[in-house]
């Protein structure tokens, strides 16, 4: 059986900084995999390599068995990869609804349509998704003036709109209160199991991570130092020493 995502021996450096050094892991369908590690550990870099934003110096990425190393983000997206960013990226001049419509238009190959206006395309589908992530009341506001938490949800809706098999979520709950975090993660977990989506996410709140992740991988200084079930990782000495130390009271 082919894995949803296989990352093998990834290296990436920026000038002198080696951000990622030989990271390998994989991800099954329907699995929630948390990637944790202190700031600067190389998590976002891994995400950027997986979705094609960056080309790795060495190593390979396979999605559904297909080697995607060096492919462009828009092609990787077409394989069924949805993504959210640590610093939200939406289309600020468009409304929430239009942001989600854009994903449908792109996924269905309708971007060159010139005979119909956007206001009549994929409206119901987009509204349904907004309901799923809970920002339907904001649908007519431009993204440029949205609150940060709502933006994160819009991004989630956008990531889900092209029916992805793999979801890459870089700090999906950053900037939210604890209650909101837990509800959002619960939502993500529900969606993942319903649709059999594999989710790779990063998260700083250990309560959230241990409550929701099926599996955890730990990065430090670009090196993968541990992986396993939440219980295994919790008991790992090295992790406790260099990482959890700062969290454990």
């Amino acid at each position: 059986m082919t894995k949803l995502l296989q990352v093998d021996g990834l290296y990436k450096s920026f000038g002198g900084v080696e951000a990622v050094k030989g990271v390998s892991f994989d991800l099954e369908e329907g699995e929630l995999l948390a990637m944790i590690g202190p700031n600067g550990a190389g998590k976002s870099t891994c995400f950027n390599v997986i979705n094609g934003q960056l080309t790795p110096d060495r190593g390979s990425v396979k999605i559904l068995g297909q080697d995607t190393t060096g492919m462009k983000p828009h092609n990787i997206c077409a394989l069924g990869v949805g993504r959210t960013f640590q610093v939200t990226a939406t289309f600020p001049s468009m409304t929430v609804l239009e942001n989600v419509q854009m994903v449908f238009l792109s996924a269905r190959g309708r971007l060159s349509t010139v005979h119909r206006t956007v206001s009549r395309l994929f409206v119901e589908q987009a509204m349904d998704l907004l309901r799923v992530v809970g920002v339907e009341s904001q649908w007519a506001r431009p993204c440029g003036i949205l609150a940060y938490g709502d933006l994160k949800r819009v991004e989630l809706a956008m990531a889900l709109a092209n029916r992805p098999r793999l979801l890459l979520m870089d700090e999906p709950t950053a900037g939210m209160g604890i209650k909101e975090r837990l509800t959002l993660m619960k939502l993500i977990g529900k969606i993942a199991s319903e649709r059999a989506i594999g989710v790779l996410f990063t998260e700083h709140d250990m309560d959230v991570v241990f409550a929701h992740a099926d599996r955890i991988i730990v990065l430090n200084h670009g090196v993968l130092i541990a992986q396993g079930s939440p219980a295994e990782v919790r008991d790992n000495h090295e992790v406790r020493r260099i990482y959890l130390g700062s969290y454990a009271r």
Partner: protein
Amino acid sequence: MGPFIVQFLTGLSNASALFLVAAGLSLIFGVSRVVNMAHGSFYMVGAYVAYFAISWLPKGGFWFWGGILIAAVVVGLLGTVVEVLLLRRIYRAPELFMLMATFAVLLVIQDLALWVFGAEDLLGPRAPGLDGSIQILGALMPEYDIALILIAPLVLVGLWFLLNRTRWGVLVRAATEDREMLAALGVNQKRLFTGVFFLGSFLAGLGGAVQLPKGGADLLMDLNVIAAAFVVVVVGGMGSIPGAFLAALILGELTSFGVLFIPQSTLVMMFFVMAVVLVIRPYGLLGKPEGVEHTVSELAQWPLRKASRKLRVTGAVLAAVLLAFPLFAGSFQLILIGEIAMFALACMSLFFITGPGGMVSFGHAAFFGGGAYAAALFVHHVNTPMELALLLAPTCMALLALVIGWFCVRLSGVYLAMLTLAFAQICWAVVCQWGRFTGGDDGVLGIWPSPWAGNEVIFYYLAIIISGGGILALRYLLFTPFGYAMRACRDSRLRAAAIGIHVRRRQWYSFAVAGMFAGLAGGIYVFSKGSVFPYEMSIPRSFDILLSVLLGGIHSLSGPVVGSAAFIGLEDLISRVHFWRLILGSIFILLVVCFPQGIAGYFSARFAKEPGDQEAGSERSG
């Protein structure tokens, strides 16, 4: 051997002169992101002031160089005044408005210089002690050229010390690399910018003054030097002083030897080199990529709104008035309105990629003039009927835009703009040089409408319908997935790519669409004028279009129409008075200071008081 060495040294001295103008421009851009169109004017003022200072001061080498320094300082102060009185008010406005403001300064200085310095060309004084020549292997080389060759490296070293060894210089470099960080550090940005403007203008003045012994001062210097200065800055990498030096060296030598081996190359050599460099290195030789991935275009703050009911009514009334116009207007008014409409279509096509598309073009006249030429040449060579020519012109321009756009969409920001300029200049040079086919500078004459459209009222309707139709089509396009995809690429490349949009391809298609509609505008335009000349493809023409777009406002869909009307109307009004550039420049300055969002933008901001939610809501239910 001697002649080659002298040719080489001549190239070096050209490089020196180029570097002196370009260094200041690069410095100013690097720190303040102002694309300073008035830089050439500062150069010209430097030459004039130095001329008068030197002839007023006692003779002698000391006083000669003293006069040059005085001129540089005077110009530095002039730049400071411009910065404090004008630019400082608008740093928050979109970058393009800075361009408009500095262009206005250029216009004002042109007329003021005529008024203050007089119309006659002035021959520069020779430098005392450096007025002879030396023998190099049998060939003569002017001593002053040797001095020039030494001045540029001196200035380079001086700048290097200033930027690397003083606190002020470190701040300037920090500002060049990261503006936000500088603001976070609590540095007084205002004073820093003013200082940089002084230094940049000082260098421009120095450049103008130092070239006196090689030429003189005349009123065309400003425009003649500004393009070259921009080329050097862009080839070197914007904001990079060593880059400017390297680029000046390369361009100086290439033009010098170009003259020797391909005498006709003089029209395009620089632009050709720029195109090649930018295609290979999108940020110039030593430039650093800007974090385009993460910077959100300032334009992204402006949502695109469907026409409100008020605007629709206004539009309908306007259309009705235009259609009924021939009933009560004189024939010249018809011609004027027709011209405004055609020009508005050209402006709309530029607005299409510049506003919602986020791609500024400095070379849009390539497509406008190109369309005019395409139509004219079909008529001239193969007797194509007007109707067919009006189809072929946009088709040809869409193809041309596909070719040019393929290279341009790989770039962004000022680099993209300068690459469009380079291509436009290459097209222009081809039209100039290929006289047999294009008529060269003598243009193509006798391109009048088909007999059925020869009547001015009928032609008026034709122009209005084609232009109006084109404008509405482009407008409609902005609301279709095609336009949204383009806007998505402007808003956030990162997000666009992540949802599967092929960013470059969308931009490429948009560029072609813009080229096509500009070609249509040019096609109909040539039938209204009866003739076409290379001027229609030249840099000033591109700037006419760009300025009109800015005049109308880059944030408003009706901006191009308003801008075109204002521009053509003003141009017509003020061509009766002397010193019209002074008036036009002052109007631009007023507009920039009072309406940073353009005329139409200003009014639409006032009209659009109703909250966006409500409007959008009614749309969806409807």
